[in-house]
């Protein structure tokens, strides 16, 4: 009897969970639906649920010159993430497995830079970029995004490095392994998933970054968020096109995030989950 009520309660909870999830994600579902509409079906009262799907919004987006923005985003995201790993992996190593004396100072410094509001530096960055001829230049974004993600990345990767059992390293040393061998054969296999998780989070934050992109780039080096700003004045007329653009702009990160959700969880909890 109780088992049956339990099961009933269980399936009621399952149904509830599904309803909550679908409601929560509904703006996204509606975005996907709207992106396949003709403009006349997009903004109607009451909303249109039955319509003839079309791909014309996607071709319209491509005609508006979406691809260069996409290419800029991909370039900036990949290179800034590589730069973060290049600088962050050795730093995380120095703060965990071969710790320096001022470890907690260094960690505190890294995290405190994350707490500096980005607005506090935007004016000099704008003036400096202008003087260096770096306005509307992808390299400026690459450097700034690396600076933005590095502190968090060091914290995350450090916690993954701490999971390497010191006995393993010492055993390898006793066997006469040199440092490069230890790094490559012992440490890397343990921390590789952590580095992947960190890279994933850097990719998400770089891809979605808005403030620097809007203020420091324009037509030439603009990333996908900058392309979307073009809809701010015309959104009343082009909902279907806006939805198509929003979908295309988010799709790369959505796919990567969906595939690597478990990495995402590990990365976000800074390696606290085993």
């Amino acid at each position: 009897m109780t088992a049956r009520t339990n099961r009933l309660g269980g399936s009621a909870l399952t149904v509830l969970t599904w309803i909550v999830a679908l409601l929560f994600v509904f703006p996204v579902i509606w975005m996907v639906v709207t992106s396949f509409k003709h403009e006349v079906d997009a903004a109607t009262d009451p909303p249109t649920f039955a319509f003839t799907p079309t791909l014309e919004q996607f071709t319209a987006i491509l005609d508006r010159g979406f691809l260069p923005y996409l290419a800029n985003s991909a370039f900036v995201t990949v290179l800034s993430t590589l730069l973060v790993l290049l600088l962050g992996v050795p730093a995380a190593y120095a703060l965990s497995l071969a710790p320096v004396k001022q470890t907690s100072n260094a960690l505190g410094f890294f995290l405190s830079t994350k707490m500096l509001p980005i607005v506090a530096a935007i004016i000099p960055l704008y003036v400096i970029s202008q003087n260096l001829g770096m306005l509307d230049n992808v390299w400026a974004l690459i450097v700034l995004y690396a600076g933005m993600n590095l502190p968090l990345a060091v914290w995350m990767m450090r916690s993954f490095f701490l999971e390497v059992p010191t006995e393993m390293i010492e055993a390898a040393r006793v066997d006469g392994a040199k440092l490069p061998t230890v790094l490559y054969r012992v440490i890397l296999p343990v921390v590789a998933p952590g580095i992947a998780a960190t890279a994933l989070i850097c990719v998400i934050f770089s891809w979605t970054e808005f403030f620097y992109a809007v203020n420091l780039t324009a037509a030439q080096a603009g990333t996908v968020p900058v392309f979307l700003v073009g809809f701010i004045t015309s959104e009343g007329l082009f909902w279907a096109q806006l939805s198509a653009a929003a979908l295309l702009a988010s799709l790369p990160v959505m796919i990567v995030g969906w595939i690597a959700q478990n990495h995402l969880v590990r990365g976000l909890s800074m390696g606290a989950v085993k």
Partner: protein
Amino acid sequence: MTAVVEAPPSPEPPSTRTRAQQRSAAWKRRAPLLPALLFTIAVTQVPFLVTVFYSFQSWNMVRPGSRHFVGFDNYVDVFTDSVFLSALGNTVTITVVCVLVAMLLGLGLALLLDRQFLGRGIVRTLLITPFLILPAAGALLWKTTMFDPTYGLLNWAFGIEVEWLSDYPLAAVMTQIVWQWTPFMMLLILAGLQAQSREVLEAAQVDGAGRWRTFVSITLPQLSRYLQLAVLLGAIYIVNSFDAIFLMTQGGPGTASTNLPYYIYQRAFEGFDVGQSSAMGVVVVAMTLIVATFALRLMFRAFDVSRGVK
């Protein structure tokens, strides 16, 4: 940079040599850290120092030649500027409300997900999606398809006619931010829920503790470091909210939904007032640092930083 790592020349008396060796060993340990440290200083600290320098000047970019030092005048202006003070209030409201609401919703969703059921993987995938949508895209979609007074889904679904963005601008912006950040909180809390030991939970049940009792006295305490981390990371990002305000309300109507990042942006890029916007930036940093010192201490306690330092 690598030049620093080289040991000093060796022909020296033994006692100093050991000290020199020690020092060179210390530098060798520090070497992997230095590039990251120098890079971070160059990209984050140097621009901030320049901001401090600008903040003591009267400098408007549309009036060339007007640039000169004015001491603390900009700071006096900032604190007597009623828009700045209301933007400060809005920033605090947005941060506190959004972090708390997103965390409670995230906790609820995580509890729903923390059991076996049909399609659990799909539900989790659906629930993390708002975090993966471009915030700029999310803001524009909420502004149009959800909040639009004539064609928006919200008014249609509830059968009402509300001008969300002009009557409740702050609430509308916060809705979008909460929607964006709830999945983040949910993922972190879910990680915490799944890390708790099943034996302890079962033991509690055997001892006759009800669900609520188990949740309050076993689950919540174990969850606390995850909740702290969620609050800290959420606050760091939500304090800087710009996309939603820029794209949904432009800070309006009037200054009703203007927060500090948006106001500083306006003063700098629409008013071209470098001096005053820099002073605001410095004030924001000073206030953030006060809160942050407190938060950092929490973080260090939660994550036991001394682990790993030998």
